[in-house]
């Protein structure tokens, strides 16, 4: 079994070095295997290097897939991080 969900990256910085480090640290708190897929390429969410190499920029659609005992919790937590409201222009 596994759960997955797609999301479009809104952070203008993409999934960049420091956000990526946070993302990886979060992923490592779960026992499930978690992957991030972009255009058919898959990255291990528990590897900073793997995530960095994926080159996720703003506007990219990615799919998070979690598989394991705590898969739903892992999916929810990582999606929440990816969807966290980044810098946006304040409406006047």
């Amino acid at each position, binding site marked *: 079994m596994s759960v997955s969900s797609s999301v479009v990256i809104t952070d*203008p910085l993409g999934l*960049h*070095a420091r*956000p990526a480090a946070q993302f*990886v640290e979060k992923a490592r708190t779960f026992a499930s295997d978690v992957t991030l897929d972009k255009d058919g390429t898959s990255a291990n969410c528990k*590897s900073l*290097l*793997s995530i960095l*190499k994926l080159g996720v920029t703003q506007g990219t659609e990615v799919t998070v897939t979690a598989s394991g005992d705590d898969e739903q919790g892992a999916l929810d937590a990582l999606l929440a991080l990816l969807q966290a409201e980044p810098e946006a222009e304040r409406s006047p």
Partner: protein
Amino acid sequence: MMLHGIGASPGTAVGRLVLLGGIDVDMDGDPETAAPGSVEDSLARLTVAIATSREEIVAIAAAARDRIGAEHAAIVEAQLLVLDDPEWYGPVVDAIRAGATPTAAAWATSQEIADLLGSLEDPYLRERSADILDVGQRVVGHLTGSSRAEALSDLSGDVVIGAHELTPTDTLGLDPDVVRGIVTEVGARTSHAAILARQLGIPAVVGATGLLEFANNGNLVVVDGDAGVCTVNPEPDLVDRARADAASRAGRVVLRQTVTTSDGIPVLVYANASSPQDVERAVRWGADGIGLFRTEFFFMQSQSLPDEEAQAAYYGAAAEAAGGRPITFRTLDVGGDKPVPGLHVEAEENPFLGVRGVRLTLAHRRVFDDQLRALARTAARYANVSVMVPMVSGLEELDEVRAVLEEVAPAAAFRFGTMVEVPSVAVLAAEMAEEVDFLSVGTNDLTAYLLAADRGNKHLHYLYTEFHPAVLRVLHQILVGAGTTPVSVCGEVAGDPRSLPLLVGLGFRQLSVSGPLVPEIKARIQRLDSVGIGRIAESVLRARRHADVEAALEELSALVEPR
């Protein structure tokens, strides 16, 4: 033999050269190269090397936090993630199982990943590439028994560290009580190692091509961090002069009071800072205040954009550390070349002529609004807070900033000023001065823009100089245009000992320099006679060629520092 590079941290140092092995590996250092062990033995050695490396990195980060601040420690802590990264650890283990020695496996994997990240366009990822080599080298060092950390921890006497390149952890691990100077073959003034060297007050020359070819371990070397020259096996008289210079700087009495020239003209000596820790140190060096607090470092080292609350706390800590002395915060000064987490800045073909400084903050209102609100809160709690905006090129931008201020912080109690670094603003100095509380001249950028020359470009060293007749004339025009509006100089020209009499002679009465230079600059000001140097400064304004300026500088040196 003189090696010419870039002065990355001011001051003079004399010492015996200790060359660090390159970021390269001596496979013979690994006993398994000659006598391969079992896979199990190899993996066990790898595990020990990784654990030792982890302990070291944690210790370096902790020391960095105490000595220079949490921002610098975060960079090192990121390296911990690499040590147990399956993309690094996995291939290393696979290679060992396939018969490679742990050293070869760890190094090849690190290099491969670093090459891959280094080839990407992104400045962030290129930085990570250096981190991965740093980590790989540390692990390999423990496997081969040639650890740079050990080489660095076991030093005595006066030492100058030489290397092809210093990694961030190398620099953080230096003991300022032993290491008198740094010289590297590559690197830039903006590289992390250079910034740290300045914070630690260690004179440094980077980009000294030929160092590893011409110098050997144990050679006596003189590092001139002002001129950017490293002399290997120097003549005895150069050594004497350098020792005298280094000793006089080291033994400099900290002057806490405001100093005056020998004929009684007060000159304020402020320090530049990037963190509350910098401010604390500057106060200890006897700075009269903080002339430039660079807010971008806080942004660059945060995980995401710091909000108003976080910024208010940070600026408050800086103002608190200033202890009532004036402190001038510069609003976010970044462009396409300086990435900030959470703030997307498009890569530009020409970032120095692109969207940076106030141009960028006006285009990212949420970021600017939060910062201005945080600064307004700081000014409400602390006296003597000023705020200035960088990269202004005309009055229109000041109008816009004022409109933003009116909207988000109408009661802001800080003094408001502008940087003068774009030549158009230097030309309009009189008009600008009428509309702000103060001007602050950023001589580095102003010089670069006036001469269309990048100071980091080794091929343009002959061109990039704050002593160009045009630069000096423009400095004079800014001062004349400003009239009674205070003008400070916060570029590093104020940190170049040769330029001090010239700046004071031209009429500048407020300088902002790197913290460790404050005692030196104050002591020198007390020996200046403003009338004599004023006369020579006047003649400099008539200079037609750089050589004319140099001649006048010679005359000035003879006048103020008879040797």
